[in-house]
């Protein structure tokens, strides 16, 4: 055979929508040169349920259960961001106790969400199932607390406009305190299993580097932004609820590589535990519940509210025309912009790292496709 007849071409691999590690139904169109990634085109929309259009035909209260289904591993934070947006539209003040309860459940859910992120990240790097199962074991404790608090395990629908659905049940503070006590040594377990593991370091250090500038240009938020060294956390910078009363640090990374993103999430676990501890100690005795179902008719106007969800900045933009339904509701989902940067990050890395980088960005398709 003559050499001139031989040629090499790029291999086109359709990763997804059915693939073990695309975090839902994401379809990556990978162009490979051997094992190296030349290009990666992201196709989304497989989980589209037209949430924003649904919102226009629902009352403000009716839309709360739908926010559960946006980022389904952090439903509490979605509920929270939405009701806070509506409350801002209504200029409604919430009872102090409700604020504390909201902080507690939101932070618990942040822990659950980060645990899932760390577990699946390790799974994507090939630590088959073991860290994931440990994380799930701890996440289960959080879910059991939520089961007790609001009666459901995944889609909580706990927040209400003007408060929360139920007050905390009897003895739940004891259980949350037990959880904090239980959780702290478990974090050390993860550290032992992953943090300094040489294979893990090899796989994550200096790979998928997201620079400060790129992160800001792509409007990356949440732990991914903080891993790139930008100290931006809405809980501190635009405090809502009672976050300004608590003491907690904002963990940041230096390089913005995969390891830093993992590190930031690990540190946020302990920071969240700290917040919960303070909130449990400071919770006032008062009425926390409100009656849902009262027809809410905000005055015509528009509002944008953003809150820090475990994945970043979750914003709700609501336009009201004075009727019972929102005229327009736009959701600014953090995962959407976090996924958009994937193409920048994966150019020139190996196939195995695509999965790892995707895992470290911690995207959730429910939120992206809405």
């Amino acid at each position, binding site marked *: 055979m003559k050499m001139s007849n031989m040629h090499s071409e790029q291999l086109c691999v359709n990763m997804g929508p059915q693939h073990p590690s695309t975090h839902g139904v994401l379809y990556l169109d990978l162009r490979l040169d051997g094992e190296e990634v030349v290009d990666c085109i992201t196709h989304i929309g497989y989980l589209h349920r037209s949430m924003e259009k649904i919102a226009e035909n*629902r*009352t403000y*209260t*009716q*839309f*709360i*259960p*739908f926010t*559960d289904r946006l980022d389904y591993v952090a439903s509490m934070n979605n509920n929270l961001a939405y009701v806070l947006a509506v409350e801002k539209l209504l200029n409604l003040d919430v009872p102090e106790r409700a604020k504390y309860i909201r902080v507690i459940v939101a932070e618990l859910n942040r822990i659950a969400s980060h645990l899932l992120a760390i577990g699946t990240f390790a799974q994507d790097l090939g630590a088959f199932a*073991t860290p994931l199962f*440990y994380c799930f*074991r701890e996440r289960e404790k959080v879910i059991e607390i939520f*089961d*007790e*608090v*609001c*009666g*459901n395990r995944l*889609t909580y*629908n706990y927040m209400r406009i003007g408060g929360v*659905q*139920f007050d905390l*049940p009897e003895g739940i503070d004891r259980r949350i305190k037990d959880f904090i006590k239980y959780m702290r040594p478990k974090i050390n*377990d993860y550290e*032992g*299993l*992953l943090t*300094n*593991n*040489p*294979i893990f370091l090899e796989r994550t250090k200096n790979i998928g580097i997201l620079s400060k500038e790129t992160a800001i240009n792509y409007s990356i938020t949440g732990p991914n932004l903080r891993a790139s060294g930008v100290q931006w956390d809405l809980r501190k910078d635009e405090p809502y609820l009672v976050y300004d009363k608590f003491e907690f640090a904002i963990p940041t990374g230096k390089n913005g590589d995969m390891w830093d993103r993992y590190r930031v999430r690990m540190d946020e676990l302990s920071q969240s535990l700290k917040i919960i501890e303070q909130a449990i100690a400071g919770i006032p005795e008062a009425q926390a519940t409100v*009656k*849902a*179902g009262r027809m809410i008719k905000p005055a015509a106007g528009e509002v944008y509210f953003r809150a820090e969800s475990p994945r970043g900045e979750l914003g709700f933009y609501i336009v009201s025309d004075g009727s019972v339904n929102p005229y327009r509701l736009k959701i600014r989902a953090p995962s959407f912009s976090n996924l958009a940067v994937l193409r920048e990050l994966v150019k020139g890395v190996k196939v195995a790292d695509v999965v790892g980088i995707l895992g470290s960005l911690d995207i959730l398709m429910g939120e992206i496709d809405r």
Partner: protein
Amino acid sequence: MKNYFKRLIFGPIDLIKGLIVTFRNLITPAITLQYPTQKQAMTQRYRGLIDLYPVKCIMCSQCVKICPTNCLALTHKEGPDKKKELESFKYKMELCCFCGLCAQVCPTAALYMNKIYEIATSNRKELEINLLNPDKYAEWAHPTVR
């Protein structure tokens, strides 16, 4: 070069740390439940299927209005003594998202959510439930409450 030897010596130590973690978990007892034989007790507030006390119902239709997925439908007629009387109360379970808004909004607590969670069925017709039938959930498994 120095880094190379450093990693060669300290790398295995960190690997062993990980092995110790997994070994500790290997000898601790398993925590999963053997599902069909062992079942987790349901919590007090658990949101299962929607259930109704027909006597308590005042036919205010608040639950029908609040339902985000329109899974409830009720009609009423005029009874013999000119009082309102429930004629039908349909619950389309396949549409229900178990959000619990209906139970919360009910002024007389006639509508509530029971603890049934094993709700798989092979017949779609079984998913449309007549809430006025007292034996509607007789065939479903009733879990214990914590």
